[in-house]
């Protein structure tokens, strides 16, 4: 089965960890992930500037490793990200901000990518939200 997974909460929220564990289980079960889409405060789950105390679980880093190692399509909504200070090099330079915190494998793009993923997948699973 093909899953589209949307994450609406930051790395420190339980639902971001749950989303990651679900995504791992999807692949471990032999299923496919059409796309991961990070929206609302979920864009913070993609920030490279999250620093977690050493004795705590670093969910942001685990997301990065997971996406990298499985070469997944991981899209961060550009409008939600700009509003929350999650910028790649191009946006940091466009808006003359001093730092970028969204390196590869993340991709900044629009909400059309959420719809496209939802249409192509058998299931859309959302984590977080208000």
């Amino acid at each position, binding site marked *: 089965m093909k899953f589209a997974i949307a994450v609406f909460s930051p790395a420190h929220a339980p639902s971001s960890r749950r989303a990651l564990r679900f995504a791992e289980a999807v692949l471990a079960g032999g299923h496919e992930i059409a796309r991961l889409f990070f*929206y609302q405060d979920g864009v913070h789950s993609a920030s490279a500037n999250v620093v977690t105390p050493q004795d705590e679980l670093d969910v942001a880093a685990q997301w990065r490793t997971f996406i990298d190692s499985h070469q997944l399509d991981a899209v961060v909504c550009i409008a939600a990200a700009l*509003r929350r200070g999650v910028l790649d090099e191009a946006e940091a330079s466009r808006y003359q901000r001093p730092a970028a915190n969204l390196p590869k494998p993340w991709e900044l793009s*629009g*909400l*059309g990518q959420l719809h496209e993923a*939802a249409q192509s997948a058998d*299931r*859309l699973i959302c984590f977080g939200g208000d």
Partner: protein
Amino acid sequence: MAKSLLIISRQAPWNGPSAREALDIALAGGAFDLPLGMLFLDDGVFQLAPGQQPTALQQKNLGANLQALPMFGVEALFACSHSLRQRGLAADTLELPVQVLDDAALAALIARFDQVVTL
């Protein structure tokens, strides 16, 4: 055939960007001609309240953007009657032409859509 998506908007318009971000999902999907519905639930029904003055909070008016829904082809608009009643909002004063649903009808509505996003 395209999968249908119900967007459930649960936040008041003054409570951060959530209401606007729920609406943006609907408008983006409308631009692709997708079969969409939008349900205003819990504090989300405050988005439909008449006579709002968001400038007093230095906020933009979400109402103008909500009015764009039918223009983007999103005409399946719903509000929860229980949420409206709890917040003292009368169905005939709302800013959008929504269908007001009781709890049983809400369950049927959600079951009718292929996919659901709640914000």
